[in-house]
């Protein structure tokens, strides 16, 4: 009789290496370039907001797990940290600390744990927190510091390019006239636009996308379908009336499109299962975003679009079930 007991378990006896904590860590790594640039641009404010958001998200998750649900704390899987980071990415860098804490409490408490924790929430928790803040603290949430590379604490505040566009259109300016006063698309791509922490630089976000695709954490379906939809729709309107509608590249590079497409819409829990479902999901987000931006009251609509489509995920899953092997549909011969 050997001293060590043999292990017996049902097959399979091997497992692929990418586990949930590793995936969460991968997402965090993917967010780092954008965070770094943000710190460079917005200075100490960005650091403050991010740290407060992460710490308070983790803290609330720990509290709720330990004292309310009485289960093992799930902070270690890293999902609360991602929620915190995403929440920080979605708010201005000069947001007062208590608002950040309130946002974290809502994101974790209402957005995630009230449904039963990781894997059970229908809506993206960070976006729940963000939208809650946007409605509760509209002034603080829409006054963004100017993107000047400085570590000075009291920078001037201003509006986002999308906000400027909306305001300009409201007072009757034409798009080219407004555009003249704004930086070029190349600047937007590199990251010098006013706005929330994480949505300033297209390049940094795309770097994150490439990393996540390489690690096979996400697939291309959601980001590409969403961005392409926005490009096509805004492009159509732009072709129809360039005086009234901005060009598609402007729409993609400004606001939260890239951040939303790469980090928010691709959240496993709140996106459809199958690739087909993911494409429908991305297209839906794109359409709603464009509708809000062009015809809605808010200058920006990515958060709302994602939350609305989150609600449709169960329905999408229901209608995009995989085809069973051996049940060929008639159309496929």
């Amino acid at each position: 009789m050997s001293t060590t007991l043999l292990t017996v378990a049902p097959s399979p006896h091997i497992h692929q290496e990418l586990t949930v904590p590793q995936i969460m860590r991968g997402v965090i790594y993917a967010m780092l370039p954008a965070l770094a640039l943000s710190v460079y641009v917005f200075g100490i404010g960005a650091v403050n907001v991010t740290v407060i958001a992460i710490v308070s998200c983790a803290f609330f998750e720990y509290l709720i797990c330990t004292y309310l649900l009485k289960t093992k704390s799930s902070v270690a899987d890293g999902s609360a940290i991602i929620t915190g980071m995403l929440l920080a990415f979605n708010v201005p860098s000069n947001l007062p600390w208590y608002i950040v804490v309130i946002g974290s409490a809502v994101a974790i408490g209402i957005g995630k744990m009230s449904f039963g924790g990781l894997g059970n929430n229908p809506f993206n928790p960070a976006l729940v927190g963000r939208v809650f803040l946007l409605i509760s603290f509209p002034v603080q949430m829409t006054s963004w510091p100017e993107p000047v590379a400085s570590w000075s604490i009291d920078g001037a505040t201003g509006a986002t390019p999308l906000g400027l566009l909306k305001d300009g259109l409201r007072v009757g300016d034409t798009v080219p006239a407004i555009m003249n006063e704004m930086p070029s698309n190349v600047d937007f791509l590199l990251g010098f636009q006013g706005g929330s922490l994480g949505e300033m630089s297209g390049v940094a976000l795309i770097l994150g996308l490439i990393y996540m695709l390489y690690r096979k954490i996400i697939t291309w379906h959601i980001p590409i379908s969403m961005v392409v939809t926005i490009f096509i729709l805004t492009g159509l309107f732009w072709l129809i009336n360039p005086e009234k509608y901005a060009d598609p590249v402007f729409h993609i590079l400004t606001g939260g499109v890239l951040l939303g497409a790469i980090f928010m819409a691709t959240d496993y829990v709140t996106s459809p299962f199958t690739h087909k479902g993911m494409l429908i999901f991305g297209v839906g987000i794109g359409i709603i975003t464009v509708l809000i931006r062009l015809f809605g009251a808010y200058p920006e609509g990515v958060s709302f679009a994602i939350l609305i489509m989150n609600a449709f995920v169960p329905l999408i899953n229901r209608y995009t079930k995989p085809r069973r092997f051996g049940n060929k549909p008639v159309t496929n011969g």
Partner: protein
Amino acid sequence: MLFDLNNKLKTFHKGGVHPPEHKLSEHAAIEELPLPRQVVIPIFQHIGKPPKIVVERGDEVKVGQIIAVHEGFVSSNIHSSVSGKVGRIDEVIDSSGFRRMAVNVRVKDDVWDESIDRSDNLVTEIPFAPKEIVEKIMEAGVVGQGGAAFPSHVKLSVPEGKHIDTLIINGVECEPYLTADHRLMLERPHEIMVGTKILMKALGVDRAIVGIENNKLDAIELIEKVSREYDGISVESLKVQYPQGGEKQLIEALLGREVPSGGLPMDVGAVVHNVGTTYSVYHAVQKNKPLIERVVTVTGKKVKKPANYMVRIGTSVTELIEASGGLPENTGKIVSGGPMMGKALGDMDVPIAKATSGILLIPTFESKRSEVYNCVRCGKCIEACPMGLEPYHLMLLGKGKNTDEAKEENILDCIECGSCSFICPSNRPILDYIRFGKSSVRKAENNQ
């Protein structure tokens, strides 16, 4: 990656995973394992009914002598794999993990039954009629050697009204680590080809395809060369993807036909046999030699000498491990078969059965399952499922004993390939609960 040659090859189109291959023993030629001192021949090694034992304690048996006769059609004969004296006939824990009847034979010498042709010369003439061939295969107790151990003669008896046009020889060996079929194709290609011709004659088909995965280039090349001497046999190299060795997946990959849910390969005009089975068919028909030995791979990351052995049925696993340099330190798990579908053994002293394709020794650091997390609804299991099922959902239905809905969601179509559990980033025991769900659905069906 887009221009990878591998992508242009045929494969199945639904799901699948690609676990690391670890074919450690692919260059180790098949060795004859020395005769053991005793064999324990399990009587029930196949799917169907257990056969009836026809020997008694104290009887002298020869190699190839029948010791248990099949009961009914879906059953199989069992022959003695050694010559000697019959010892205890009792229940032992075999590779199925359960206590089942087995016959102990103490080995005395190596006297073979007179009817068996032990020479090595190749007999290519097939003088038998299809019916006689099936009869001979049945007598020889040949069963599928890929893992399921389905009696081969049943697969060759085509019911009236079904038309078979293609015979598929399964040389895929998609399980990581295993190389038994690979070596057999390299070392006994002619026997396999004649075996294929025999099967073709028995089925009355004039087309046979040997499907081999692209990670066995030498075997593809050799079988391609050899097959030119035999009419109607062609070779197809396939993209490496698990579970291509599954009958349904292989048929889809080679012929583009999908076996309907709940149906058999015969329903789409195909019959699949494993190369190991084909080799045994050759011996059964041309040499009168029953299935008494098979090739078994002994492998594992820490094994001193990963190897392929020609082993008599009933030899203890311990003996194979000894031949490969002994049990490595810190062995945590011993698997009979491959890592994806094999069965973990609770004890080393288990006899090799007709369907044992390999013995895999997994070191301690890889033998335990990792921590389980919540399902994050990533959908990877759905993308990986080769049957187009929703494993995460079936797991919940199985766990909740919701048999009606589970059946509606085609839980019985699951081939238990393990792709879902393999891919799940939360380490959830998806397949465990699907199996559980399947058995409760079957139980509910039986009760009705």
